[in-house]
């Protein structure tokens, strides 16, 4: 087994201007925030983000790293609308690809399976088609029973990622990952849709320890899916990472308040973004 341990800086160094970056988790849940913060203080720009979005999208938009957001929602869950993403959208600072949550899944799945698109009924009749003029429909070659022709379906294009960033509860040094909460989200698909795949984990453990803390199904990320792993304890903070820790609602409210003015953001940024990971964890009381 290879030793795939890397540092946060190694991962950020792989990300270049203009790349398409997929970020795992869902809303304000199990986001690779240590990696996101490092990206926010890097010199990278013009990223295209693909995310079931939460504060990952908000922080990177606010830090000026983003050209386009491919999204179905950007939410903090307990605070439904992500304040920094809202500001970025309403000022026209970022463009978007507006997708249904399920089309998003199909785009990642198509990329993972190396096919150019997957057909779906989803999107028909909605403004997903108007807002994405490049989206095409395909005619099924197979007639439905009792019908003459085949039906028209949306051809959801593959969402090919340059880099995927995910956060798991446990990992080993070979790049296998285990989640211990109730939902794997789409982290495995994010990895399979990407050229380079990086995983932060709460704790690096011996491979033999996975089966001691969860069922085999929890070992969702196998090492075919990853290129690097880094241990970042408390690294999903302030998003939810149960059972290790809940969402930090107090901090999330402070984060939300930082969208109210330039001064508020500058203060937040100085204290919580433009600092090392160790300084951040000390600042939030770890």
């Amino acid at each position: 087994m290879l030793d795939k341990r890397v540092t946060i800086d190694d991962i950020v160094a792989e990300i270049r201007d203009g790349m398409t970056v997929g970020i795992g988790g869902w809303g304000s849940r199990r986001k690779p925030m240590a990696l996101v913060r490092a990206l926010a203080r890097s010199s990278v720009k013009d990223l295209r983000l693909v995310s079931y979005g939460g504060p990952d999208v908000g922080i990177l938009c606010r830090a000026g790293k983003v050209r386009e957001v491919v999204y179905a929602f950007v939410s903090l869950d307990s605070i439904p609308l992500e304040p920094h993403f809202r500001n970025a959208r309403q000022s026209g600072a970022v463009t978007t690809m507006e997708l249904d949550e399920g089309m998003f899944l199909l785009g990642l799945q198509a990329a993972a399976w190396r096919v150019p698109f997957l057909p779906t009924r989803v999107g028909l009749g909605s403004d997903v088609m108007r807002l994405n003029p490049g989206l095409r429909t395909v005619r099924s070659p197979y007639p439905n029973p009792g019908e003459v022709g085949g039906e028209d379906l949306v051809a959801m294009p593959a969402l090919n990622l340059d880099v995927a960033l995910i956060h798991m509860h446990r990992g080993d040094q070979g790049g296998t990952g285990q989640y211990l909460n109730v939902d794997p989200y789409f982290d495995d698909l994010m990895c399979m849709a990407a050229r380079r795949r990086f995983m932060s984990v709460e704790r690096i453990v011996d491979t033999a320890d996975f089966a001691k803390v969860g069922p085999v199904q929890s070992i969702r990320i196998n090492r075919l899916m990853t290129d690097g792993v880094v241990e970042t304890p408390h690294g999903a903070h302030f998003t939810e990472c149960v059972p290790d820790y809940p969402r930090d609602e107090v901090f999330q409210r402070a984060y939300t308040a930082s969208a109210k003015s330039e001064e508020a953001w500058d203060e937040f940024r100085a204290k919580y973004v433009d600092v090392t990971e160790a300084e951040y964890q000390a600042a939030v009381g770890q």
Partner: protein
Amino acid sequence: MTRDGAPTRAEVCAAAIADCFAPDGEILANPIGTLPVIGGRLAKATVAPELVMTDGEALLVENIIPIGVDAPEKVIAGWNPYRTMFDVVWSGRRHVMMGASQIDKWGNQNFAFIGSPEAPRTQLLGMRGAPGNTINDTTSYWIPAHTTRVFVPAVDVVSGVGYDRARDLGPEASRFHRLGHVVTNLCVLDFATPDHRMRLRSVHPGVTVDDVVAATGFELAIDGDVPTSRLPSDDELHWIRDVIDPNGLGEEEVPNP
């Protein structure tokens, strides 16, 4: 009872929402929002125990769990992570009740954004699952504050597909599209008209037809005398007050007039 007295407006809404899900059979009843969850669980607790419901996240639960209570006891009967939810939706075994920032007479719904796509005046939730929900399964809507800001002549963005759009798609592509009811703090609406225009189905006790018309930014179909929404039964009040919503969150969402 933890709360006494005559049924409140919120409890009338909960009963109306329960009636939306009651005839569905063995499907996933998936109400989103405070009173939708209360009403959905009320249907399962009373007349429709066959409904399959979640804990609001990734578990299917068979018992009636309270809202707004930390770590309620759950009788877990299934695992339904987000990825599995798409299997349910796309196979046609769900009835969702969603919110709407805007809705028009055909039931086109918007909660994505208001204004231009390049720089919206107001960025809202995004498309979420609305396009997929509406093209695959029955969809109902819950509007806690019925106003002309929500009930508009034309929505800025179509996230949930309405009946005019479905008709334009043709019978094949739209064969799974169906809108159920629109329940609001004032009334119940449906699409039971020849061309599926929105119709006033009932007004809640204490609300007049004129109240609803004044709060709606387009012409509603109104045939004859509009009935009054039913009151919840004593059994339903027990379920709402003692079991499903012990902290009265529904009363916060729709205050009693």
